[in-house]
């Protein structure tokens, strides 16, 4: 088990280095990316992970708060991530996002046997759940923003925010104890859902990303469209496959179908399958032309 862990670490070291870099780029007290942006635009506020809020701009888009989008760093960031996903796949999710990195990292370092971890075997069901959340998120934004049910429904951004929970945990680690003293009901639910259920108890540790991240879901829609047009993607060559299933055991996003093809509405181009497959059945590709034997993307 130890050897397997070290082998995975070695083969995917660039991604793990990138995920660590993502932490320093976006999470305060470092937030190097956000500091640079704030410096460039002359903003004297202290940047935190909230500076690149991964949810509110999506809420604003559907709730009629268009004025909030204007001049917003987080709105520019979210739109940038979605556009990038069209061309390169959801690389922010797979290579930089500190929220996903922490839960995935936790999943990898806690030696809970796979049989005790939750996983939905059919990626189509996972996809149904994921996009059910996205549809619900948009519906809530519309209902809350346009007061369709008065004040009976409230946005699901800030009240259930894994980024806020992560930032609070880090703030506390760097000496601001208050950040961990105050918990609201949604914060407690997120801590349990993101780190314990989604992180430790779910296979791959990306339960939150799969089921409760609207930006992740939208990024994957962009990726699906992009990959159909030949943008950067993971592809499967069935002629090289020996059905060892090691790809399925490794994919943190449960994105490998029964026929081993890649489910692009879930795949984050993390390259774990590419680096894992002993026969090289998975590869990263540009362009629309497919070789004989390469399975059609779903």
């Amino acid at each position, binding site marked *: 088990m130890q050897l397997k862990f070290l082998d995975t670490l070695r083969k995917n070291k660039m991604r793990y280095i990138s995920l660590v870099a993502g932490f320093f780029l976006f999470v305060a007290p470092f937030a190097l990316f956000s500091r640079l942006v704030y410096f460039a635009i002359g903003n004297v506020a202290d940047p935190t992970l909230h500076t690149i809020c991964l949810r509110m701009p999506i809420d604003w888009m559907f709730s009629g708060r268009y004025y909030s989008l204007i001049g917003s760093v987080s709105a520019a960031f979210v739109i940038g991530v979605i556009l990038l996903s069209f061309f390169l796949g959801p690389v922010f999710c797979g290579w930089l996002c500190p929220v996903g990195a922490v839960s995935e990292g936790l999943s990898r370092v806690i030696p809970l046997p796979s049989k005790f971890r939750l996983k939905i075997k059919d990626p189509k069901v996972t996809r*149904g759940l994921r996009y059910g959340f996205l549809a619900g998120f948009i519906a809530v934004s519309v209902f809350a923003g346009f007061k369709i049910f008065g004040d009976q*429904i409230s946005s699901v951004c800030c009240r259930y925010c894994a980024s806020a929970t992560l930032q609070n945990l880090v703030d506390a680690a760097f000496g601001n104890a208050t950040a961990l003293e105050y918990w609201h009901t949604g914060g407690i639910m997120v801590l349990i859902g993101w780190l314990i259920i989604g992180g430790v108890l779910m296979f791959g540790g990306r339960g939150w990303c799969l089921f409760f991240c609207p930006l992740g879901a939208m990024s994957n829609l962009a990726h699906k469209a992009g990959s159909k047009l030949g943008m950067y993607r993971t592809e499967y060559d069935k002629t090289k496959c020996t059905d060892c299933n090691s790809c399925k055991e490794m994919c943190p996003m449960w994105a490998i179908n029964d026929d081993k093809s890649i489910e692009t509405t879930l795949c984050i181009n993390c390259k774990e399958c590419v680096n894992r497959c002993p026969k090289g059945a998975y590869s990263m590709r540009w362009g629309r032309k497919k070789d004989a034997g390469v399975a059609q993307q779903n």
Partner: protein
Amino acid sequence: MNKTVLIAFAAMFVITLSLGAYAAVFGKSEMVHFWVAFPAGNVTEPITLRGAGPPVSMAPIVIDLDSRGALKNALNPNIEALSTHWIYNLGKKPVRVQLELANTTFPVEWSVSANLPYDEEAHTFTERLYPGQSIKNLGIDWYFRIPAYYMDEQIVYQGGLKVIDADTKQVLTFIPIIIGHGQEIVGGVADCCS
């Protein structure tokens, strides 16, 4: 699309709507967010002020500790918070904004971040906020550390937020705040994601 996928989609859709409904319930008494504008005088009832930018609705803030979520009450009852992201100058002159919480009888911690220089000691924004403008990238959280012996009181805190012109010391807006048990919530609660 097969039936299982549709059921999964529908189930998650309903769960998400339920989360929105639940957020609306506990959001009225946990980490309550509210809008601030000045000059508004003593805000004794719900009012809406209009000026540059969106309309600003304010009301006395009433937090009913009994209406909080079960997890909050069970695991973290003794610390409550208020928050604002919105302070608007709807007056006619530039103001150096000073904030003050009135009548605090137990520790309240301030956490302030804004794109406007701020003096932590004096709770004052050291540059003027011009008419028609709001403080950009504002995040103010007030953490009320309620001593255990206060928790059974009907009224735990009765005071309010003063918005003061730091140069003249004139109170421009006063928003009453009550934290207690069985209190009737009158409004003034904003969606934190606005």
